[in-house]
């Protein structure tokens, strides 16, 4: 069930050459990218932690007005993510495009200072930040796949995502530390957040390599990637199946907001504990990302992804099931975190080898965009199901949808003979 068997290994970059450091868990480039993500997430989560305080108490604005532009932003980000991915492939500048993404988000932190009380300006700044995030993720993930031998991709993504989550954990602490010193001066948090983000860009510029381990991954004689070729990516069967599967899997996710809301309603959890639900999930994600990545390298990525979505289905069933109290909360958050750990990086690890190296960023961008757009659709559908059938039945329907999506994914990505043989790669 190992997906690289359907790819064309000849199109893949050569391995990282002579491995000087056999003991290294992941390549230096992955560590560098993980460090950049860690620092950037500290910066992003610093702002995330204080933005509600800033908008509501600092500026006395009604943040409900922000929801209006949400759909437009998501659509624009999706498009630009693919355009950015294509540009990264065409000019063979994945590092540059990722760097632009990180820089945009850093500048957005300063933008918050300049936006003042203007709602459109704040909306624009948030859009720029989101754009930066959208633009950078595909080239970053492409660099990880190009810096890692195919058999170690799961581990590489696991380590990267775990580092990323550590940053997300530290961010709010850093923000509150700043606020302890400055009181209500939220701009001090924004300036600090900008400085942290700028440091991440410095680390990216100095330590992340476009062509890992010195080996030229693409010869200069190779023709540049054309728009036509990029569109042709979807004509190749494995890539098309992959994007389709990713979009289908996206349809199975109803979103964190709904999961936490249902949990809170079920348990009549004090509303003030609500934010801790996200913390619990992140903790499970942080702890499980690397082990599940390693597991994916051992037993194959598809089984781990399937396992992750099974965990998601069980999470949904638990929300409408017989278990109550703290066991329910602990089990739900652990499984939900496991779902993220088993799918977020592993899916890209699964996708990487299927996509030709010269179009890998475009391909990863397509996979991520497919997922994001499908998620948008599924959250709307779930809202409608809730409206029509009530929350309990809506979540049961979501669990059924997960089962259906899993069958569809297996049909798309695993050939029946391999399923029977249960062949372990390598």
């Amino acid at each position, binding site marked *: 069930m190992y997906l690289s068997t359907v790819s064309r290994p000849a199109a893949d970059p050569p391995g990282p050459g002579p491995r000087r450091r056999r003991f290294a868990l992941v390549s230096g480039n992955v560590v560098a990218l993980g460090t950049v993500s860690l620092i950037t997430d500290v910066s992003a989560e610093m702002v*995330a932690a204080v933005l509600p305080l800033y908008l509501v108490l600092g500026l006395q604005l009604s943040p*409900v007005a922000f929801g209006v532009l949400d759909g437009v932003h998501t659509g624009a980000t999706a498009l630009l993510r693919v355009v950015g991915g294509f540009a990264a492939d065409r000019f063979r500048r994945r590092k540059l495009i990722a760097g632009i993404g990180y820089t945009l988000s850093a500048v957005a932190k300063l933008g918050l200072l300049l936006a003042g009380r203007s*709602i459109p300006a704040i909306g624009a700044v948030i859009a720029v930040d989101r754009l930066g995030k959208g633009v950078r993720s595909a080239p970053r993930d492409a660099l990880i796949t190009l810096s890692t031998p195919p058999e170690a991709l799961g581990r590489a993504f696991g380590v990267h995502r775990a580092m990323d989550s550590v940053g997300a954990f530290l961010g709010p602490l850093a923000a509150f530390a700043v606020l302890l010193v400055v009181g209500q001066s939220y701009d001090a948090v924004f*300036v600090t957040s900008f400085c942290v983000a700028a440091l991440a860009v410095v680390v990216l510029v100095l330590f992340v390599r476009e062509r890992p381990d010195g080996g030229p991954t693409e010869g200069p004689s190779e023709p540049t990637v054309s728009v036509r070729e990029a569109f042709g990516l979807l004509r190749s069967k494995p890539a098309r199946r992959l994007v389709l599967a990713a979009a289908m899997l996206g349809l199975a996710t109803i979103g964190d907001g709904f999961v936490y809301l249902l949990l809170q309603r079920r348990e009549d959890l004090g509303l*003030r504990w609500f934010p801790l639900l996200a913390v619990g999930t992140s903790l499970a994600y942080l702890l499980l990302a690397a082990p599940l990545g390693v597991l994916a390298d051992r037993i194959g990525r598809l089984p781990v992804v399937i396992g992750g979505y099974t965990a998601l289905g069980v999470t949904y069933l638990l929300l409408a099931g017989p278990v109550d109290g703290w066991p329910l909360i602990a089990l739900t958050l652990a499984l939900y975190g496991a779902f993220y750990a088993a799918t977020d990086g592993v899916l890209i690890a699964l996708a990487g080898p299927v996509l030709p190296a010269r179009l890998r960023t475009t391909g990863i961008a397509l996979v991520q965009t497919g997922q994001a757009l499908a998620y948008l659709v599924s959250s709307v559908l779930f809202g409608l199901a809730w409206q029509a059938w009530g929350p309990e039945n809506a979540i049961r329907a979501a669990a059924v949808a997960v089962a259906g999506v899993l069958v569809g994914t297996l049909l798309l990505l695993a050939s029946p003979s391999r399923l029977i043989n249960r062949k372990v790669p390598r």
Partner: protein
Amino acid sequence: MTAISTRAKIGVVVASAVLLGSVAAGYVAMAAEPAPPPPPATGDQAVTLTPGPRLLAITDRYVSTVATADPAGSRTVSGLECLRVYAAAGTGVCLKPETAWSYQMVVLDVALRQTRAISVPGLPNRARVSASGRMVSWTTFVGGDSYTSSGFSTRTGILDTTTGVTVASLEEFAVTLNGRSYRHPDVNYWGVTFTADDNRFYATLSTGGRRYLVRGDLAARTVETLKENVECPSLSPDGTRLAFKEAIDADPAKGWRLSVLDLTTMRVTATAETTSVDDQAAWLDGSTLAYTLRQSDGRPDVWSVPADGSGTPRLVIPGAESPSPLT
């Protein structure tokens, strides 16, 4: 690409970290200013909620009162820190900081003593007391779980100070929308105002990107929609009109017009206030509305305007917010 030694790279990163760290630390040091000590109660008299010709408001985060006849004149300031305050018939409600990042709803007696406190989720937004002083309501903003998601929602609770019965969130109530039973996860409520029977109330319900005026029944735990695009209702003392904020072109991004709805005819009259008002207005008497407006730097002022659409807005209490007549 020019080859730079790892040692040189680490040197550059360390230098950048020191430089950026100094910038951040410098800015933080500059922004850090000692919090002003709570002002002592001035004059002989302390702030009380005894009904009388005074206005209650928040001055620099502290509860204060001014004489209705001379609202810009001398101010009595208490040591009680609140982000929102309201009072009626000797009962007060205050949304105050509990810790540095959490808030509580506090019920106050006539001498501004705390009689009850409930921890509330999120950030203070609205607070109201029924005319009899029995019912208390509050709204908070919750969310922003993720910087890039617009996950803001509101939570509105109600407390019966006589029985102690608490509704933690109006979202538990059954909804009738345009005459039909309705449920949806995106339902949010804000801005409650109570009627004289201390059971019925008006509030804003938001769902599917639209905002409705609802009439609620606490005993029956139901709400029904009455009209679209009516937010933050505030019932007049005689119970016949609702002051509210009306989103311009039904789009909150364009701001709100302070208006009055006649509950008998359902006719809407815009007040003479043309600046966008993002507040739940308070009735100073049967014909005058008070509300908070913010200057460009965010500093608040309390203004008033006639409720019948005549006249012009008047600055009432400079540098104050959250006005409430002491009735």
